[in-house]
């Protein structure tokens, strides 16, 4: 085990190097009463989180996106794969190592109604975060930090909120307290698991804008997990689309949403309500449901629903193909020898 000193000297501090990186992250949950069967929740996920950038992970419920967040937060043991923080592989599930890790990697949960203890005031909740992560701070300093945290999340004046209980706050205010609690650790990485989906529609944008400002201010790397691809376009620099435990497409958000390459991403975008696109909707019917993750279909996991499924989609899992400059998709249509099929599927566009 490296000493803290070694860790600093060895760690990769180049500016463009990812703060946090996962390589082949996999999680199989055992099925109760069976030794051989397992739920393939997450299979071989590679994610890179860069300083000052937001990466969105988009997928349906059950696609494994929250499991990815819990794996990265080290709340779950991975089946295989590596998580690297500043270039150093980390496995930390308890004790000091874990605490050192969570000082850098903090998580915001979906439901601020459940993630804040109802019997504690805002002062206590944030005070705990400061006490744990700034153990040497004196009382006066802690008070300053406390007020600073509330100010950072736009809960001003802080005095008004310090002695409130969660039930006295609105949903948006509660989520801001949860964000402040995460910031108390002065993290490098923020894992935001559906941070706005439980909030009222009129205040969601406010919370996303707040996260955007905090990202700029503290140079945070944010993993934004969501099922709403339109919000990913609004908020995230890069977007990764997850289906049945695998990332099937990734690229700059604007490219992924405007020129989706993978048939699943295309389906996702065509399905999202969009009042500007009332006419000229894609006529392809959306059939089927996500596959069982206990016995995922052989080959490409999207093949039972894919309108373009070919012979090899049924047997061979597609590798990742480059589609454009920064865009990649795990789909056989983008294989070099599949240009005919690609044209048949999308016309002359591709």
């Amino acid at each position, binding site marked *: 085990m490296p000493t803290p000193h070694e860790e600093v000297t060895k760690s990769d501090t180049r500016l463009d190097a990812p703060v946090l990186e996962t390589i082949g992250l996999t999680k199989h949950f055992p099925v109760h009463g069976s030794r051989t069967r397992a739920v393939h929740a997450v299979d071989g996920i590679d994610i890179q989180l860069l300083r000052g950038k937001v990466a969105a992970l988009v997928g349906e419920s059950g696609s494994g996106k929250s499991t990815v967040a819990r794996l990265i937060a080290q709340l779950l043991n991975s089946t295989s794969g590596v998580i690297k923080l500043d270039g150093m592989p980390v496995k930390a599930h308890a004790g000091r190592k874990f605490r050192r890790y969570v000082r850098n990697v903090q998580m915001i949960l979906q439901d601020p109604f459940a993630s804040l203890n109802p019997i504690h005031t805002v002062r206590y909740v944030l005070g705990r975060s400061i006490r744990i992560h700034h153990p040497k701070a004196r009382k006066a300093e802690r008070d300053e930090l406390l007020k600073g945290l509330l100010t950072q999340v736009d809960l001003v004046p802080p005095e008004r909120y310090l002695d409130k209980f969660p039930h006295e706050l609105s949903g948006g205010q509660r989520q801001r307290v949860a964000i402040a609690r995460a910031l108390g650790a002065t993290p490098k990485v923020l894992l935001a698991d559906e941070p706005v989906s439980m909030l009222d529609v*009129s205040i969601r944008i406010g919370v996303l804008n707040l996260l955007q400002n905090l990202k700029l201010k503290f140079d945070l790397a944010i993993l934004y997990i969501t099922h709403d691809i339109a919000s990913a376009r609004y908020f995230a620099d890069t977007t990764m689309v997850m289906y049945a435990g695998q990332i099937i497409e990734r690229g700059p958000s604007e490219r992924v949403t405007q020129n989706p390459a993978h048939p699943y991403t295309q389906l996702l975008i065509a399905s999202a*309500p969009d009042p500007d696109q009332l006419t000229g909707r894609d006529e392809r019917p959306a059939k089927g449901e996500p596959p069982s993750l206990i016995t995922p279909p052989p080959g490409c996991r999207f093949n039972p629903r894919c309108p373009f499924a070919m012979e090899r989609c049924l047997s061979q899992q597609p590798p990742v193909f480059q589609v454009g400059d920064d865009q990649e998709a795990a789909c056989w249509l983008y294989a070099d020898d599949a240009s005919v099929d690609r044209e048949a599927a999308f016309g002359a566009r591709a």
Partner: protein
Amino acid sequence: MTLASPTIRPVASASERTPVLQIRNLSVDYGYDDNAVHALQNVSLTLHAGEVLGLAGESGSGKSTLAYAATRLLPPPGVITGGEVLFTSSRDGHGGDLLRMSDAQLRAQRWRDTAIVFQGAMNSLNPVYTIGKQLIDGITAHSPRGQKEAAKRRAMELLDMVGIPKDRLSSYPHQLSGGMRQRVMIAMALALEPEVVIMDEPTTALDVVMQRQIVEQIMSLKNELGFSVIFITHDVSLLLELADRIAIMYGGNIVEDASAREVYREPRHPYTAGLLHSFPPLHGPRRELRGIPGSPPDLMHLPTGCNFHPRCPFAFDACTTIDPVLGPTRFEAEEPHRSVACLLHDPAAAPGPVPVELGVRPPGVSPLS
């Protein structure tokens, strides 16, 4: 992938103007004493035959309360304190005030005239009975005795109609996926071919792909069977696609009532305009959105005057004292069918002309009269 009905619909054809459900001055309180929360205050809303009426609002705005009160399904401590809900059949003209019906009348009326699709299909189906039993139970309750076989055939027909294999009749709810359960709920609601179907967030728990499938199914069934729909959701962008008319609710009141296109292109209420700026677009230019500052009102401590004034960018002095009522817009002459509850549209109270954002005119009409 398209909604089954054409997206450009006539705003007011003759058949659309026959009212089937008229809610008049409906008020609902939660609680009985002086501390009762006024969840709905004098809400009026009319559903016309063959129409899809969208009811949009944030949590706590009273949209579900309105649906449950109008069908008399409101559980205590919810109390209907006033108003009437008139149902008039467009088929044979029978009907009456739902709020004044006897229990027996109400039992006969439910499912046959008005049906409701509840929010969480997971919680609305009984987990210990097969979906077949639950479907048949409802059908036999409304049909003459000894019709068990016919009811079973009908149940199969219904499942088939919503795209579920007939042999699933003997499945338990946990054996179905979320989307299928929601389809079963829709099949149940349609069992007796009701004229009015109220859908309370039928797709909220589902993914966008499944949501699209269910919405398309609802629209094609609507065209086929000809019922009217009240579609309740917080997702205005979904409503813009499928609804003919949209009523926006805020803090227990309807604040705007207009056609879907008008709500989207020419909002008249500041809240509607703010709501439209709360949804990031999937296409078109990427621009910064502001949402609406502040939080939805606490119904226990509603502000004085207009409920929206603490969050309203256009609020002026009178807004803090006068509670606006739903009335015509400033452009009444050209859009008599629209209504809005905002003092900016009351020439007697407003300090000046309607702000530009709330006075967008249809193409071809001169700006700001």
